[in-house]
């Protein structure tokens, strides 16, 4: 008990004296704040992509696509779609229609508001596809497109990025004028970056003989196995079947992987620099207090109590730094829209990222404090008392 009391007494005394070393101590706080702010901002980009990609996706929706190619020009004929619709496990709506939506996606080039052109996706969908997303999909303005007419609706992120996408505008795609008849939002998901029109109209306008992939709503998530086995064992179909969240996850893995690599790399190199700065601060602090420490040890305080007090000081500087850095990253960037690789999404500084920032700071505090702590605890008392 006496031991703990010793630690407490030395630590409290040490922390009380912190304001007198404010200038040097601030170096660690600012350094850690910069590392954490930069790292969380970079990782926040990846977290934003991940959230946008997965937003509103349901476990009970499966995607059927062609094996081999990732972005195909089209792989499913209307006959194939009919076969998929008859597979076991497919949900039917109140009128008995199977919940199956063939999709035809085209990459189109639009005039970016920032100048130049950018690739956007025109997805051909339909009524059933809309029903599948009815939980998150809302029209903001105008109305839905009609089948057979060159009409489309645009996501709000697309509207933000490209020119001429207000309701009522007309844009020319492949020599054909298309009218923007509505605008939608979809829970901040990636789909808000695209234009949506009727699948068959898109196929006809862009001369596509087949659909690209097929979305299927299952009776329940547990029917997936049954549905998948039925399709993959059907010799007339050459398909790959995945749960929609898994599919999105695989699609975004290369991008988020790269972003987290950059985040951790830059965060790591910066942290090394801050450890050097923090070591400097702590060594100077120990140095400035060497007579005080020697006096404490001379009157009976243990080396461990002194060492712990130095470590606690190191943490006491790093942790507020991390909180400050998280706050900066959150204020500047959380919810901040950025456009990258042709998609626009909101950055997301999540609580788990803040926790990561705190861990990072704790490691910096530990590495930057341990050697000075050992030095403080082991320096010969007599020598320290004698030196001026």
């Amino acid at each position: 008990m006496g031991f703990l009391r010793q630690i407490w007494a030395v630590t409290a005394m040490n922390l009380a004296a912190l304001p007198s070393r404010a200038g040097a101590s601030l170096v660690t706080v600012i350094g850690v704040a910069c590392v954490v702010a930069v790292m969380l901002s970079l990782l926040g980009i990846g977290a934003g992509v991940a959230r946008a990609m997965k937003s509103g996706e349901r476990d009970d929706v499966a995607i059927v696509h062609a094996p081999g190619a990732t972005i195909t020009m089209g792989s499913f004929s209307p006959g194939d779609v009919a076969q998929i619709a008859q597979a076991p496990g497919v949900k039917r709506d109140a009128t008995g229609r199977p919940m199956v939506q063939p999709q035809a996606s085209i990459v189109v080039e639009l005039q970016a508001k920032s100048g130049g052109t950018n690739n956007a996706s025109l997805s051909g969908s339909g009524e059933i596809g809309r029903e599948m997303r009815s939980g998150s999909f809302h029209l903001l303005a105008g109305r839905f497109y009609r089948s057979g007419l060159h009409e489309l609706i645009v996501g709000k992120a697309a509207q933000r990025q490209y020119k001429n996408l207000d309701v009522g505008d007309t844009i020319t795609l492949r020599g054909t004028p298309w009218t923007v008849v509505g605008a939608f939002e979809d829970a901040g998901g990636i789909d808000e970056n695209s234009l949506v029109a009727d699948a068959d109209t898109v196929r006809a306008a862009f001369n596509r003989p087949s659909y690209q992939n097929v979305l299927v709503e299952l009776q329940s998530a547990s029917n997936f196995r049954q549905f998948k086995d039925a399709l993959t064992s059907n010799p007339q179909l050459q398909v790959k079947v995945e749960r929609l969240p898994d599919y999105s996850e695989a699609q975004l893995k290369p991008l988020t992987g790269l972003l987290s690599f950059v985040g951790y790399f830059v965060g790591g190199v910066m942290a090394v620099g801050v450890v050097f700065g923090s070591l400097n601060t702590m060594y100077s602090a120990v140095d400035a207090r060497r007579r005080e420490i020697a006096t404490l040890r001379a009157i009976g305080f243990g080396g461990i109590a002194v060492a712990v007090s130095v470590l606690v000081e190191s943490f006491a500087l790093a942790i507020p730094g991390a909180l400050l850095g998280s706050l900066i990253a959150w204020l500047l960037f959380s919810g901040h829209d950025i456009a990258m690789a042709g998609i626009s999404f909101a950055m997301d500084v999540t609580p788990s990222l803040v926790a990561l920032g705190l861990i990072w700071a704790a490691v910096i505090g530990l590495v930057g404090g341990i050697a000075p702590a050992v030095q403080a605890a082991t320096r010969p008392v007599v020598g320290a008392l004698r030196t001026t």
Partner: protein
Amino acid sequence: MKFLHLVWAGVWRKPGRALLTLASIINAFLLYGLLQGFVSGMNGTVDDLHADVLITESRVSQLEPLPMAQLPLIRSTPGVKAAAPLIILTGAYRTQAIANIRGFAVDPASFAAADPDAAVPAGDIQALAQTRNGVVLPATIAATFHLKVGDPLPLKALLWTTKDGSTWPLQVVGVYPANPRDTLFGTSFLANFDYVDQARTQSNGTASIYLIRVNDPSAANQVASRIDAQFANSPDETKTESERQLAADSIKQIGDIGFVVRAIVGAVFFALLFSVGAVMMQSVRERTPELAVLKTIGFDDNAILSLIVAEALVTCLFAAGIGLGLAALTFPIIRASIGFNVHGGPVLLIGLAMAVALALISGLPPAIRGRRLSIVDALAGR
């Protein structure tokens, strides 16, 4: 100069502290050099491109196929020297690889005529023409995957499926020297147009893009608009741009990387400024009696000021030099692995200028403090 020894001794007055300070400055400049080198490489690639090469793609998007019927019309457009159809065949080899490998299916003869640098040696073009499922690789790809002539290269193409739904059974017939400056072909593999076109399940008889070489680089823009005018209002409108324009657009599409890098570097130097500034301030405070002695033996106020600023300059320039040097060592690696041709000179010069600025901002306040010391007070320890 004769005081350099004194300055150097001041830098190393506390060796432990000096080493830590130097390490943190080296670290910051290394990071700066790496990031800024990467950005300069990305922007630099655009400047390195040929002026006489045009790329024709669909006005709808890069992925939209163009009918081969357009090729003879393009070839007969005035100002066009040669034109070759290409199919984008970029895809994945080995699933664990992070990035797709980039490549095109080309018609060997017309490609050789339009290839601006003769990047691919005639022998390899010949070998490609003789092997239907052949593929020639730049040395970089061959080295990454340890491929040599005769090896199979099963490729999972991003865009195209074979009729049996499997991977493309390509076979390596040649390895040519990689040219990272040639972003279009110096780093891409080449397969046979006819083979890929006939074996794919859709879009047969189309090209992804046309590679065009013009007679006169200064007339490239006019030739481009002449080509596009021919197909205006047809179902397959084209967009013809110079290779440079195209590269600049695709870099822009990735996002404003320059801004991100500047923000990171800004944060790093903000933290570094405090760290170096605090160390300099502390060091001068500890040396108050020594500075007073220097003044006593005849150093005037400005000499003390210059001495302290010089100490900051030596520290920062010495460490920045090491950090930038380490970063410069990685430039050839960046060049070899990503194909970016890093423009190191400006990056290093700006780095040194930043080191000088860092030294002045962190060294001046303690230097002014040193200048203002009154001998009597300082010696008395007040």
